[in-house]
């Protein structure tokens, strides 16, 4: 039992802060820290917050757009890397966005955008998010590819299909679960991403994390507790749904 202490500590450590935020979100009083009775007032406040609504819309636009780019580029890249090259350099380029510290990528992109004199806006964030999105999709699809049988593609060619037909009719359907998983990952990463967005977003187009950042920075209000709880609920539901979904598709 003694050996399990760090294990239990880890889970308590991970969940206590979240629980405190959730409990405080239904606090009637003005303090984000101390309890003064049940109330849903802060959720009402949240629903009417224009800034948060703008941030949310921006975030969804960025996430959807970058995921679309990332899914197409990442899938092609994964197939190309797995089937058509053995270059270590290309491999490294495709995995670099995953390990590179976000701040380094953020200043690089800022420098690059300023060099080509691109005015920062929402699309500059979108293009930036597509970079790590592509790497994420490529990584997930590649793991799926390594478990897929290359003989399927060879069989298709042997039966007279050309490269494009084989790609569309054989490769893509086999990879579909991997592509969906990769796209979901790219979307989640984009929704959550703060540092790169902070550096590359125009002043008129803050994403939701940027809005949260400024709220937290300029004073803690219980409204953040409510917002945090809503976000937690959405992510938890999404993760559990994905979990259920992958279990179902794997069983088939």
């Amino acid at each position, binding site marked *: 039992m003694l050996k399990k202490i760090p294990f239990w500590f880890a889970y308590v450590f991970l969940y206590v802060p979240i629980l405190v935020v959730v409990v405080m979100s239904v606090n009637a009083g003005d303090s984000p820290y101390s309890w003064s009775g049940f109330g849903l007032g802060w959720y009402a406040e949240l629903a009417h917050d224009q800034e948060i609504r703008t941030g949310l819309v921006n975030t969804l636009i960025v996430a959807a757009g970058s995921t679309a780019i990332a899914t197409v580029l990442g899938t092609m890249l994964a197939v190309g890397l797995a089937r058509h090259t053995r270059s270590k350099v290309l491999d490294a380029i495709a995995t670099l966005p995953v390990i590179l510290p976000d*701040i380094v990528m953020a200043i690089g992109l800022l420098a690059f955008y300023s060099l080509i004199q691109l005015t920062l806006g929402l699309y500059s964030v979108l293009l930036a998010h597509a970079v790590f999105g*592509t790497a994420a999709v490529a990584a997930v699809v590649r793991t799926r590819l390594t478990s897929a049988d290359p003989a399927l593609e060879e069989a298709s060619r042997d039966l007279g299909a050309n490269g494009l037909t084989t790609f569309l009719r054989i490769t893509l359907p086999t990879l579909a679960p991997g592509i969906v998983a990769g796209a979901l990952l790219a979307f*989640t990463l984009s929704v*959550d991403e703060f540092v790169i967005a902070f550096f590359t977003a125009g002043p008129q187009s803050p994403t939701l994390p940027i809005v949260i950042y400024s709220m*937290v920075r300029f004073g803690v209000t219980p409204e953040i507790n409510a917002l945090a709880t809503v976000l937690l609920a959405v992510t938890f539901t999404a993760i*559990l749904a994905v979990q259920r979904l992958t279990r179902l598709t794997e069983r088939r």
Partner: protein
Amino acid sequence: MKAKLERITLLGPGLGYLTALMVVPLALVLSYTIFQRGRFGGLVYEPTTENFRRAVDPLYLDVLVTSVWIAGVTTLLALLIGYPTAYVIAHLPKRAKTIALVALVLPFWTNFLIRTYAWIVLLSPAGLVNDALTGWGLVDEPLQLLYTKPAIIAGLLYSYLPLMVLPLYASLEKQDGHLLEAAANLGARPARAFWTVTLPLTLPAMLTGCVFVFVPSLGNFVVPELLGGGRTAMVGNLVRDQFLKARDWPFGATLALAVVAMLVVLLLIQAWSGRRLQGSDHA
């Protein structure tokens, strides 16, 4: 010929995109380190070593050292908590294992700022921790918990602990159970078998976890700002300020290079430890 066309069609767009928006920006950052800052921000393309000289000025070197120290302590704590956690998870029955793993990554998928914010709520003078301490009569006055180094470490640890547990779990999970039986058969007590077999075989995973925790901790500027209250600046804060406030991009780039350099060194160590076990299941 046809194969070549196919290769270019598949690889071209993705690699082109990553080159334009990652390789080129990185090269830019790297090249900025040897240029000078213009009078009103911007760049003067005259080579200089001034940026590097400034980076080792005690004022900034101190920040670098503090950053490495904080990221190092965070990594060490993550390892000390994460290893036993991964070990317990790896030995759970199948169903409990799935639940434990999902529970481990769930908080990780919630917004990073929210996770940091939760610690402000916990650690503030009127927060839960101080409430508990004063309530139990352990202290008379609320302690200054927020805006301290331990607060930064707690915040970083909270954000990156799963990144330590996951690679360790993966490595422990696939370890051949016969190896421990072999160790017992050759006369090793369970504790001895752990130190001589399990631990060395999970060394590459330990280093992977350390890279995963150390690198983002080092470059982080949100946690030091929100939980450190600006009193304890880390290298990430310096980089951010050089780019967004002081507009001294060359110097900011030089500081960022220090972070990248540490990343490279860690990756090399990690690759080396993996190669030592090459051919085994644990490479």
